[in-house]
C-alpha cells in the first residue's frame, strides 16, 4: 500500500510542479506577488470542463486549447497589475481582489457544485501490487513533457535565457538590449498558461469547484517556498514531496487533513529555513535596485 501511495503521490506531484513553476516564473521574472495563482489553475479546470461540455474534447486533448486561453487571461491580468509592480502590499491586495472576482464569476456561471470528469478508462495498469490509473499516468506524462519543454526553453533559447537574466538583474538585462517589459509580460503569460495546463490535467483527478483556487494558491506557494524561490530543480523535488505527502496523509489520517499537513510543513519551512530546502533566495530580502553613487 505504501508503495502504491508513493507512486500516486509522484504522479500527482508532476502536475503540481507545473503550477509552482508557473508561480515561480511570475514571481521571479515579472516580479508579481500573485495570490490569485490558484484561481488561474481553476480557470484552467473550468475551461477544460466547458470545452468538454461544448465539443466533447477530453482534457488530454483540450489542454492544447486551454494553454492559449490561459495565456490570454494572463496577458489581461498583467495589464491590470503592472502598475503595482514594486509595491508588495498593493500587489497582495490587487491579486486578492482578482481572486475574489474570478472565484465569484465562476460561481455565478457554474454554481457551487463540485464538477468532475467521468473516467474515460475503466481499467488501470497493474504492476505487481501497484495500480496506476491511466488518467494520472497520462496527466503525469503531459506534465513531464511540458516541463521538459519548458526547461529546454529556459536554458537553450535566447528568450528563455533573457527571462532568467531579467529575473536576476533588470537593468543589466536592458543594457544587453532586452526589452524588459516584453519579457515580463511573456513570463507572466507563460506562468499563467502553466497554471491553466495544470488545472486542465487536475480535472482528470479532482473535482472542480469555484473556491478551489484558495487551495491551489497556497499549494503553489508551499512548493515554491519549499523548493527555494527561483530554483526550478528544487521546485520539482518539492512538488513530488508535497504530492507524496498529500497521498500519505489522505490515506493514513484522513482526506480533510491532506492540506493541513503541508500547511504545517509550509509554516515550519518559513520559520526554520526561510531560504527553502534547496537553497536559493532569502525570503527576507527585498528585490530592489538601490540607486547609489
Amino acid at each position, binding site marked *: 500500500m505504501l508503495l502504491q501511495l508513493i507512486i500516486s503521490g509522484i504522479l500527482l506531484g508532476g502536475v503540481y510542479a507545473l503550477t509552482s513553476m508557473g508561480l515561480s516564473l511570475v514571481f521571479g521574472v515579472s516580479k508579481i506577488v500573485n495570490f490569485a495563482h490558484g484561481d488561474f489553475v481553476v480557470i484552467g479546470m473550468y475551461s477544460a470542463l466547458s470545452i468538454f461540455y461544448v465539443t466533447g474534447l477530453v482534457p488530454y486533448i483540450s489542454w492544447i486549447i486551454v494553454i492559449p486561453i490561459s495565456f490570454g487571461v494572463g496577458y489581461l491580468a498583467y495589464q491590470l497589475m503592472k502598475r503595482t509592480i514594486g509595491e508588495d502590499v498593493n500587489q497582495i*491586495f490587487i491579486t486578492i*481582489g482578482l481572486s*475574489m472576482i474570478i472565484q465569484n464569476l465562476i460561481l455565478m456561471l457554474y454554481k457551487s457544485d463540485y464538477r468532475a470528469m467521468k473516467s474515460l478508462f475503466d481499467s488501470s495498469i497493474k504492476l505487481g501490487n501497484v495500480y496506476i490509473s491511466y488518467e494520472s499516468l497520462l496527466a503525469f506524462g503531459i506534465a513531464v513533457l511540458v516541463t521538459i519543454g519548458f526547461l529546454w526553453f529556459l536554458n537553450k533559447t535566447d528568450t528563455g535565457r533573457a527571462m532568467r537574466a531579467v529575473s536576476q538583474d533588470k537593468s543589466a538585462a536592458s543594457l544587453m538590449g532586452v526589452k524588459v517589459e516584453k519579457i515580463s509580460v511573456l513570463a507572466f503569460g507563460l506562468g499563467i498558461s502553466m497554471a491553466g495546463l495544470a488545472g486542465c490535467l487536475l480535472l482528470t483527478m479532482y473535482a472542480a469547484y469555484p473556491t478551489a483556487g484558495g487551495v491551489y494558491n497556497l499549494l503553489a506557494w508551499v512548493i515554491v517556498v519549499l523548493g527555494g524561490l527561483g530554483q526550478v530543480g528544487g521546485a520539482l523535488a518539492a512538488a513530488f514531496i508535497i504530492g507524496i505527502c498529500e497521498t500519505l496523509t489522505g490515506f493514513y489520517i484522513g482526506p480533510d487533513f491532506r492540506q493541513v499537513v503541508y500547511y504545517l510543513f509550509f509554516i515550519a519551512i518559513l520559520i526554520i529555513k526561510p531560504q527553502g530546502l534547496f537553497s536559493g533566495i532569502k525570503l527576507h530580502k527585498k528585490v530592489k535596485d538601490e540607486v547609489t553613487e
Partner: protein
Amino acid sequence: MKLLNNKIIRWAAFFLVLIIAGLVVDNNYYLDILITVVFYACMASAWNIVGGYAGQVSVGHVAFLGLGAYTSTILFLKLNITPLIGIFAGGIMAMVLALLIGFLTIRLRGPFFTLSTIAIAEILLVLAVRFHGLTGGSEGLNIPYRPSVYNFVFKSYFTYYMMFILLMIAIVAVISYINKSRTGFYLRAVREDETAASSLGVDVLRSKLTALLVSAFFTGVGGALYAQYLLFIDPHTVFTVSFSTKVAALSIVGGIGTVIGPIVGSFILTPLEIFLRSQLGGTYQGLYLLIYGVIMVSVILIIPKGIYGALSDAIKRRRKQVKNELSA
C-alpha cells in the same frame, strides 16, 4: 488640546447619531442591517491596526474571529460560564494565538507573512471540523435562545446593537490613543521603513507584535459577540478566509491606515452587499463578492489611499490653497 476636544466631540456626535438611528428604526430588519454594518466596521478597524498601521497584511484574521467565537460559545455550552466572561476569554485566546503566530512568522517579509496567516486560518478550519466533540463539527453549535443577562442572550435587537456600538467605541478609542502614542508613531515608522525605524530606536518586532495582539483581541471579542448575536456558529462561517479578504477590502476601499477609513468602507460596502444579496442572491450567487472584488481592484488602481484618504487629501489641498490665497 482644542483639536483633541474637537475630535472627541465629533466622535461623540457620530456615535450619538448611530444610537439615535437605532432607536428611531425600531424594526428588526433594519436593525440587523445596522448591526451588520457596525460589526464589519469593528472588524475592519481591528484588522486595520495590523494591516494598515503596521503594514503587515494578514488574510487569516478570521482565525482570531473564529477562535473568539468558539471560545465563548464552548465555555458557555460546556461549562456554563457566562458569555460576559466568555467574550473576554475569546479575546484573550485570540491574543494567545496572535502571540504564537507573531513569534513564528512576524519576521517574514510581506507576502510570506500573509501566506502563513492564510495557512493558519485554514488549519484552524480543518481542526474545527475535525474535533466535533468540542466544536460540533461542520454542523456547528447552537446557543439556546433563553434570553437573560447571564446567558447574554437578549430579546431586543437594540441591545445587541448597543453591544456592537460599545465595541466600536472601544476600538476607536484605542486606535485614537495608539495613534497619538509612542506605539502609534513607531508603527507608522515601521510601515514606512523598517531599517530607518530601527536606527531611531524602534524595536521593530515588538511594535509589530503589539499591533497584532491588539488587533487579535478586538477581533476575538467581535467574534464572540457575533456568535451571541447569531446564536449559531459553524466552521465555514467563522473560519473561512473569504471573511478576512472581505474585511481587508473594507479597509482598503475606505482608506487603509486611517481611523475613519475602515468605518467609511463598512458603511458603504456592507449595505451595498446586503442590498445586492437580497435582490440578486438567489439568481446570481456570488455576484456581490464579485462586485466587492471589482471595487477593491479599482480602488487600488485609481485611488490607492481609499475613499477617505483621497477625500482628506483633497480637503487638505483645498485648505492649503485657501490659506495661500489668503496670505497672498
